[in-house]
């Protein structure tokens, strides 16, 4: 499959954030978004996910015969972790696995916990987690169900070195399996991306 962005314009609060942005991303390719704060990295990810309409231009997918939206094929991990502190680590994952339509919830949870070795924390309340642990738990959602597009907004923030490596391994294996990856970063992620867009330039 291919994800095509065609002449995307983005406005926020009446201000033009970027305009005329186009790219094509094929199976197994990664796109890195860099640029200063406010250059529109997060906005672009949200637009791709369908959390907002571009001021101009279109996103499209080819090579798929069902009519799911791009967002429904995507994992989107934003700054906020979407965790409930009153639920246990495992319950958090179980809910999202069910919500995203996993056919085998238990297997999904196992994969999710395995991603960052969180198995030993499964039964603890998510409210007890440190920030880094909570971030890892949020990223564990990526493994709950297989979705071809990963949209990651500053995924490595708050992670220690070992976790960053595990994340990089997960991203590489996702692309090896033919998945698409779009990520933003300030710090570098330890993954070789096919393309890079510096968002500061377009503004």
């Amino acid at each position, binding site marked *: 499959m291919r994800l095509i962005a065609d002449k995307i314009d983005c406005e926020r609060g009446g201000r033009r954030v970027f305009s005329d942005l186009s790219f094509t991303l094929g199976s197994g390719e990664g796109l890195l978004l860099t640029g200063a704060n406010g250059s529109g990295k997060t906005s672009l990810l949200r637009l791709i996910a369908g959390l907002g309409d571009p001021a101009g231009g279109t996103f499209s997918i080819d090579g798929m015969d069902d009519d799911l939206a791009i967002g429904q094929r995507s994992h989107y991990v934003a700054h906020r972790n979407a965790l409930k502190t009153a639920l246990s680590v495992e319950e958090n994952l179980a809910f999202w696995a069910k919500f995203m339509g996993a056919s085998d919830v238990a297997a999904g949870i196992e994969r999710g916990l395995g991603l960052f070795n969180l198995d030993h924390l499964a039964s603890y309340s998510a409210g007890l987690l*440190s920030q880094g642990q909570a971030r890892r738990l949020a990223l564990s959602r990526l493994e709950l169900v297989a979705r071809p597009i990963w949209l990651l907004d500053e995924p490595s923030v708050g992670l220690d070195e070992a976790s960053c490596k595990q994340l990089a391994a997960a991203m590489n294996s996702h692309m090896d399996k033919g998945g698409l990856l779009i990520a933003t970063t300030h710090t570098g992620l330890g993954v070789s991306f096919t393309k890079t867009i510096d968002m500061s330039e377009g503004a």
Partner: protein
Amino acid sequence: MQKYANPTRFYALSGKVLPWLAAATLLAFAVGLYLALVKAPQDYQQGETVRIMFVHVPAAWMAMFCYSTIALASAIGLVWRHPLADVAAKCAAPIGASFTFLALVTGSLWGKPMWGTWWVWDARLTSVFVLFLLYLGYMAIWQAIEEPLRAARVAAIVALVGFVNVPIIKFSVDWWNSLHQPASVLRMDGPAIHMDLLAPLLVMGLAYTLLFFTLHLIAIRSEITRRRIRVIELAEVQG
């Protein structure tokens, strides 16, 4: 005082006291209920229903007593910043609320034969009802704030504000009631009450007080344990 206020020492000491306290509670209830249900004479007007009084009146006493305990413990917690005082205040609330609820329900049961309806807005019942609401509000604070230290501060201030307000509420409700119905149907305070009724009432009062102390100790011990578990869990999770 400071010596016994250490949670660990308190835990050990209360463990020794608890069985004796529980036994004393049972004994007091046995004697009290015997006096109240068997020995005490029927009332010439109310008949057997007067016996509800022996369950109802001590419950109403305890409703006030528990709230005073909370206020006292809160004041100690605020001034000396002692965690055990905070825990004591927190743990007294559900017990006090239960006594208050018992007072309301038994009052209503008593009201049926007395007034012909389950509920009458008489001054005493209304005041107890407002007290019940104060309990609910106090307990809601503990539930709403996760961080125990902050919850303790806020809850203590709320308890003290409530405590200062109780007499004012009581006074205004009495005044409101006198406006609508001059004299209360039931009068049982003062020396008018007969000795045969007073003795069982006092024993029941003692039994209720002992029950409160027993339950309170158990509740404090479980709260201390709960907090320790949380600390251990935190240490385990975050390494």
